[in-house]
Every structure is written in structure tokens, then in C-alpha cells.
């Protein structure tokens, strides 16, 4: 746990016969990762505290009858851990079977197809639809319910209840806008309602969608998403503010169809706000200004070139300054510009226009 007091103490444990010395604040999973031993996981997400809900990372610990989850069991001095055995393989396989018994197996239309952690596990543990012949689970109907924000849609049947979305909302966003509710096989993720009057705490950041491993939380924006192998991911800097978050524009057939992020890239480390994540549909908007327009003598807008347009603007500014004085002009710049652009802008207003009437939208 990150909140534990950090000490310099070290512990030595044995994982799969390999002697490993690690700080005493880390878990078995982290210790194994350090030693290059792979333990399969599903609900575990490196950016979040351990959840321990999927039960796939189970390992055997000498002296304890029941397997323990590696992701949330702390590494202790002298522990002897086995990560691979026939029993563990069988147990993990059964657990993945249980998850799949509740999850639609029509992978081909799913946009996650080919980039899905659950699919990878099913392949690794050699599972297919025929393994569920004797699991004719009588699924309850899940009526559609609005999610915490209209930008997102929740699909209870796809959901594997790993709990990442709930964790990211409370841990990273600090909101706790969604929670798990219902019991047993009827459990679903639901927006938190403190009471009838209070609206949902959700700020539509879409972090829950980002960490969802199975596309159970999907955005309602944009069109068809395209499959991972036909999607080109173009890394760029978000243009909405000066923070400089890194994001990947997902491009299919030269059309931007969505935004994804990578956990280890940029200052944002995969996180985005609702503008950065969902504010891309303007790119292909019909209403978008593509060329400069200048009003003609009849008052109608006409396409023109940049040179002509800028010439006109400069001419008019000069005229106004001459006729009415510099203080009749003013400048308002945008948060979507960089620091340098904003600096140049105020130089222009102060030194060229000769007025101090300059301001910035973020100050309003």
C-alpha cells in the first residue's frame, strides 16, 4: 500500500525457487514482476491500488491451505511462493470460465477484439465456447439504465465486475461517482446517488472507460470505432489547454474516430479530462471554418486567401486606431494557445496597438 510508512526494511522471499530481496512494502505480484516472473492478472492495473476481485493472480504460499491473490498479499520474510502448478492452472482456468460464462462470446463485432485482456487469457488457458456446454447459466435480464453521464453507456452483460472503474473514479479522480450495487450474479456498476436531489457526481472524464478491460463502458460519441488492427494511432498533444496532455488520435480511413491514451506516456500518464477524451468530433464537422472568409460589399461572406484576409484585418485595425485612438481596441486571447503564443499576443496588443486592453479567457 502506498500509504504505509516507507521504511528501508527489506524482506527476502522465494518465488518459484528463485530467491528475491525486495522492500517490505510491496506485494507478491510486484516482487514477482521485479524478478521477471509473470503472474497472470485481469483486475490488476498498474495505476491503481490492488483490487483483488478477479482471483486470477492466485498463487500458492507454503503453510497456507488456500491460494492467495498475489496482487494484494504483501511479500513477507521467508515466504515460499509457487506461481505455476497444475492445481493453480486448473483453478485459474475455472475462474476464467466463470467470467466468460457471464460475458458474451461474440468477439468479432467487438471493437476490443484483438486488444482484449480477457480474450488473451481465454486463449492462454485454452478456452472456447464448447467449454461452457454444462454452464447453461440462467442470466437475469439487465434492463438499460442511464449511466453516470450521457457521454458513456454501460453494458452490464459485457461487464466482468473487475472493479477497475470504481477504483479509478475514487482513487484517481477522487469522486466516487460510480459503485458496485446489487448482489451475486445481479451485481452491476451504477452511478452513486447520495439522495434523490443530488445529481451524479460524475464529471464525464471517461477514466472508467479507459481502464475497462472489456469495453463494458463505451462512449456514445462518434461513429463506428474500427478494429485495433485497422486503426492508426497518432500521438499528439491535446489542444484544449496549456497542460500538454499526450493522447493518441485513433484514425480509421483518414477519419478520427476516437481518442486513446497510453499509461506511460506524457505528463498525464494516460489520464485525460472530458474535453481531451471526447472533444474530437469537431474535426470532421461540416460547420467548421476551413478557409478564411471576408465579408464583401453586400455583406456576404466570401472565400479568400490568408494574405488578403490578414491584409484586410490589419488595414481595418489601423483605421480604427487612427480614427478613435488606441484605447478603442482590445485583445482577448485563448487558453488553447501556447504560452509563447499568448506572450506574443500581448506584445502585439501593447506595443503595436498601443493599449493595455488585453486579457485572457482563463481569467474570466
Amino acid at each position, binding site marked *: 500500500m502506498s500509504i504505509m510508512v516507507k521504511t528501508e526494511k527489506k524482506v527476502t522471499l522465494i518465488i518459484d525457487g528463485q530467491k528475491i530481496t525486495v522492500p517490505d512494502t510491496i506485494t507478491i505480484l510486484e516482487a514477482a514482476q521485479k524478478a521477471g516472473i509473470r503472474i497472470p492478472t485481469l483486475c490488476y492495473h498498474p495505476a491503481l491500488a490492488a483490487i483483488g476481485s478477479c482471483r486470477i493472480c492466485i498463487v500458492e504460499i507454503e503453510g497456507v491451505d488456500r491460494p492467495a491473490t498475489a496482487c494484494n498479499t504483501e511479500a513477507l520474510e521467508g515466504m515460499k511462493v509457487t506461481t505455476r502448478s497444475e492445481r493453480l492452472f486448473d483453478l485459474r482456468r475455472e475462474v476464467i470460465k466463470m467470467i466468460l460464462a457471464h460475458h458474451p462470446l461474440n468477439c468479432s463485432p467487438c471493437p476490443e477484439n484483438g486488444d482484449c485482456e480477457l480474450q488473451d487469457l481465454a486463449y492462454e488457458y485454452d478456452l472456447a465456447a464448447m467449454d461452457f456446454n454444462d454452464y447453461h447459466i440462467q442470466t437475469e435480464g439487465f434492463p438499460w439504465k442511464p449511466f453516470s453521464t450521457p457521454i458513456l453507456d454501460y453494458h452490464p452483460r459485457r461487464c466482468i465486475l473487475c472493479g477497475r472503474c470504481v477504483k479509478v473514479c475514487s482513487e484517481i479522480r477522487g469522486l466516487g461517482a460510480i459503485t458496485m450495487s446489487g*448482489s*451475486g*450474479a445481479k*451485481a452491476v456498476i451504477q452511478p452513486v446517488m447520495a439522495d434523490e436531489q443530488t445529481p451524479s457526481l460524475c464529471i464525464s472524464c471517461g477514466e472508467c472507460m479507459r481502464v475497462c478491460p472489456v469495453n463494458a463502458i463505451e462512449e456514445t460519441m462518434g461513429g463506428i470505432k474500427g478494429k485495433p488492427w485497422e486503426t492508426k494511432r497518432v500521438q499528439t498533444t491535446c489542444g484544449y489547454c496549456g497542460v500538454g496532455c499526450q493522447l493518441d488520435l485513433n484514425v480509421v480511413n483518414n477519419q478520427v474516430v476516437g481518442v486513446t491514451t497510453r499509461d506511460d506516456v506524457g505528463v498525464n500518464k494516460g489520464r485525460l479530462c472530458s474535453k481531451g477524451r471526447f472533444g474530437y468530433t469537431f474535426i470532421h464537422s461540416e460547420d467548421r471554418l476551413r478557409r478564411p472568409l471576408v465579408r464583401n460589399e453586400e455583406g456576404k461572406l466570401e472565400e479568400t486567401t490568408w494574405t488578403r484576409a490578414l491584409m484586410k484585418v490589419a488595414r481595418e485595425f489601423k483605421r480604427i486606431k487612427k480614427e478613435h485612438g488606441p484605447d478603442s481596441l482590445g485583445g482577448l486571447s485563448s487558453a488553447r494557445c501556447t504560452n509563447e503564443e499568448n506572450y506574443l499576443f500581448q506584445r502585439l496588443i501593447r506595443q503595436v496597438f498601443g493599449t493595455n486592453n488585453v486579457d485572457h479567457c482563463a481569467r474570466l
Partner: protein
Amino acid sequence: MRKVILGTWQDKIIDNRHKEKHLINDEFPELEDFEGGNRIKAFVGWDGFFIFDLDVPVIDMMRAYVEKVQEESCGYCTPCRVGTKIVADKLRDMTNGLGREEDLRTIKRLARVIRDTSMCELGHTSMTALLKIMELMPKEFEEAIKNRRMMRKGAYRAIATAPCIEACPAHLDIPSYIDAIRGGNYYESLAIIARKNPLAGICGRVCVRPCEFVCRRAELDEPISIKYLKRFVNDQILSYAAARSKKAETVPVRSDKQVAVIGAGPCGMTAAFYLKQKGFSVEVFEELNEPGGMSAVGIPDYRLPREVIQAEVRRIMETGVKFTYGMRIGSDKTLEDLKGKYDAVLIAIGAHKSKDVGMQGEQEKPEGYISGVKFLRDLNTLHHIGEFDPPGGTHLVVVGGGNVAMDCARSAKRLGYSKVSVIYRRTEKEMPADEEEIREAKHEGVEFNFLTNPTGMKIKDGKVTGLTCIQMELGEPDQSGRRRPIEIKGSDFHLDCDILIPAIGQAVDLSLFTQNFPVKTTKWGTVVVDEETMMTDQNGVFAGGDCVSGPKALIDAMSQGLHVAHCIDQYLGGQPMNMPENERMFRLIKAMKLPQAPVNRVGNKPRCNLESRPIEERIMDFDEIEGGYKPKEAIREAERCLRCYRIAMFVTEE
């Protein structure tokens, strides 16, 4: 009472199926009827099962059990969420005559996976009985598959319980509210507490916490700080609501029936809250000028600030309960008046009269002799307004070993007496006071004289000047299981003191019962009530709390308040009055005294302790000693909970 025909618990198996009557092995518990005339035919639990009557439909019984598991499963981990659903579906198919040969193998395989890989004890224990029954009664299952017939259904009563829930007198759903804290849902957590306990702030500070003493985490490191977690959610929500001046919702009156509650103590307030929730008009009459009863005037502010009590009462008032202070029933108004005006009356007057030690000179009531209850009451009602005049002197002696004695001694230290001693006739081990209280009293400089009993007082000019005491030794254990103290002849000695505070017990002030309105009482001076209905011998007059049980812990009084509210509701609704089914099941489980299986898990995270103020600072005033948890600490503490949920199910005749 019936004997177990076939049963197993942990490693023990008892099979009396083919035995002569006299050979029957009766190592296992016998169970009484569920309620009058309704026999218990079987019990299915977390470490095994007992069958008292072979007539039970075994497969349907297990279907009901697994369906209950599925209903209680929180949905967090996969095996318990999905696995138990598949098993329940398979068993249901079997009872409908649709079972197949391979289902038995599937059930067994899944059951083992659920047992081995679930997150909490609910999953770990949910399949034990099923696996054992499939092993011990294989024929039943084989026949079900061969015959393919619809099966008879039985009558089942099931409950989700845990050691801490069983230990709590009010049976609070402790793992569930801790779970809500872990998820950061403080609202939900407080709502879960409020189902059984409307005074979370009070309870979270001064509860004697029976739950923590049975917490199974203690086997790994230390028990969960259940009390402080309760305090944490309460304080969080309260400060949130205060910052936004949010009020509790007023409950609309849904019934024309009216209830009078005498006493605004823990029992009275709890009962008033739940009666109001049920839609009755409720009025509380309190003799003192402030709410809280013994929790307000018996517990000093450094342990339970009066603002906390007042905040709790404000919340209850906001739901629509009326409070009248400074009204003593018995002198300002009589019980008869109330009975005439209200449809039901609840007596929850507590035990505010002090008991005498039984030594020389007590009857004279000399200066400097003041009972513990009176000392604390004067201190608590007068000190905060600056009108308390402590008895003069330097050496103060408290007689007794309970929490009241500790409160007196620690308060005296704060009032500035240079020497404060406690006299107790047994040793520290036998002291009924909370360990923590004793430890803190010692830290604060209270002196302890164990194995000492006062026999007489030295009085000079109507003022206490000293005590004669006698040394004791411990003899054989008495009924309470503690060793009885015996006087050592000729060991008398003298002790100088200026103030003597006896705090050896309290009695009920029965002066509100008059000749015109008699209510039956016991020879110990407590009110007699029917155990199931909580009604006194007067129709429509109920009683609860310390005035029924004698002085007991806060949570005991609150659990009685909860129970009596249920009874009054049934009485006013004209329903037959009986105990809630869950309460009956808790009592049966307790009576069985089932052995606890050891915790077989990895864990090494000691509990998160509260920061308390330094001793030099805190003995100068009556401000609260400990600050509560911070959110991070609380979540970390909540993460330690093992969730020892388990399902108990009784198969009854009807």
C-alpha cells in the same frame, strides 16, 4: 429437543442413521423448537450441517442454501458471484427433475473452486456443507438424477451472519459497513449502521465493543478497529451535513397512534427513532435539561463530548420526534396521565441511583462522601457552564472497578486533586472496566489499590477524614466466573482521604410507579418485562434499557431500544407479538456454541491507532482525548477486514 441423526462440523462426523437409540452419539448440539411447536429439522452452517430428521428434502435444502449464498454474495469476486449462481441453477434444475449425471461432477468441481479461490469467508464457507452432504448422502443425489421427479420443497429460514455480528447485542451488519468505508461510500456505510443503530457517534466513542473481542483478524495480527471506523463515518457525514446545513428528512406521520417514551437515554432515543421511522408520533420526556441520559451525565466529556450527543439528538429531532426536557414522570406528570393520553408508553429511565458499599458511616452522609453517579452527574451538568463546585480536599478515593469508577478517577485527575486512588477488592485481571480505560487511568497518574476492601469511614466534625480497609485474597470462582475475594483476617489498615466516591453499581429509581399504577419489579429493583414482547404486566406499557437489565453497556440498552420499538410497532398494529425472526436465529446460533475454525490466511498489517493528546495536556481539561481517523487511515483499516460472513440456515417444519 432432538438429537443429531447425521451431522458434521469441521473434522467431526456423526452418523446415527443405522444405530440403536441408546447408542446415539450426542456430542453435537441439540436444538429447541424454532418457535413454539415449530420443530427444527436440520441446520446448515458454514463448517457443516446437522440433520435432526431424515425426512428433510436434502437437495432442495442445499438449493435454498446456495440460493441464499448467491443472494448475499456482494458480487465483488468472480467465484462467489458467478460460481454460486451456476451451482444454484444446477441444484434448482435437479429439484425440478432436470438433473443430469454430469451436473454432479460440475457442482463438485465448481464447489471446490469457489471454496479455494473466493475472496472472503462467505465464499470460502459457502460450499463446505454441500460438499460434505454430497459425500455423506450420495444416494440422495444419484436417485434424484435417476428418478427425474419434481421434489418437495421445505421451509427455510436463513441468515447471513459473522462472529462480530453475533457478538454485537444490536447485531449490526459490521462487515458490510466496513466494506462501504473501504469503497469510500460513507453515506451508505452510515445508512447501514442506522438500520440498527441511530447513535453511531456515541457508540463509535464509548462502546464496549464486544465485536472487537471476537474479531478473527486477531489471529493474524490485531482485531479491526470497528469502534473507531464507526466514529469515522459518523463524523465525516455529520461535518459534511453541517457544512452544507443539511437536515435529516422528516418522516411523515403514517399512523394516528401516539407513543410516549420516558427517558432520553440510549434506549429511549433508539426506540423513539425507530418508532418514528415506522410512522408513529413519538414524544420523549426527559427529567434532565439535556438529552443523552447516562451517556450524557454518566460519561465525562473527554470521552464523549456533549456536542456529539446533541448532534445525534438533533438528527433524531429532525426526523420529527418531539423532546420535552425537565419533565419528571412521577412528580410533574404521572405514569397514569401518560397511559391515558398515549397508545403506548415506553419506560427507559435507566439506573441512576447509586448503590451503597455497605460500610460503617455511610448512612450519616458526611461531607466528602459523594456517590459516583452523583459526582459524574454534577460534573457533567455543571462543569461546562462553570458552576461545578468540586468537594474540597487533596486525596480522593474511588471504590469500585468498573467504567464508572474509571470515569470518576480520571475526571478527578482533571479537576486537579493531587492524589487520586482507586480501591478494588479483586485484582486488575478481574476488573470489569475496559482495558483501555484502566491503561489510560494509569497513564494519567491514578493510583490503584487492588485486593482492598473498605470496611468503614473515619468521620470528624461531619467530614470524611479517612477509611479503614481490609486486605483480600482470591478464592474459588463464583457464578460470574471470577474468583471470589475473601478477607484476610487481621489485615485491617487505615487510609487517609478527604473525599470518598463509591462507584460499585447503580440501581433503578422506581419512584414513578405508584399504588394507583403498579408495575411488577424484581427483587433487585428492576422492571419485569416479557422477554419476547418487552411489555410489563401493564398492557401497553413497555420497558427497556438499564431499568430492565440492570446497569449494562450502552449498546445493550440500544439493542433493547431496537427490540422494544419492534414490539411496540406490532402491539400498535394489532399484530401478534413475537421476536423478529433474525433475532431468534441469532439466539439459536449462540446457543449451539459452534467451535470456530482457525483463520488460514496471510496477514501482517497491525491496526491503525488513533492519535491521542499528550497526557500533560489532556489532564488539564475535559476536551476529547483522541482525534478520529483521517480518510486514508480509515480506508486502510477497513481494508484489513476479512469479511467473515457466513450463512446459517434452519430447516423447520413450517
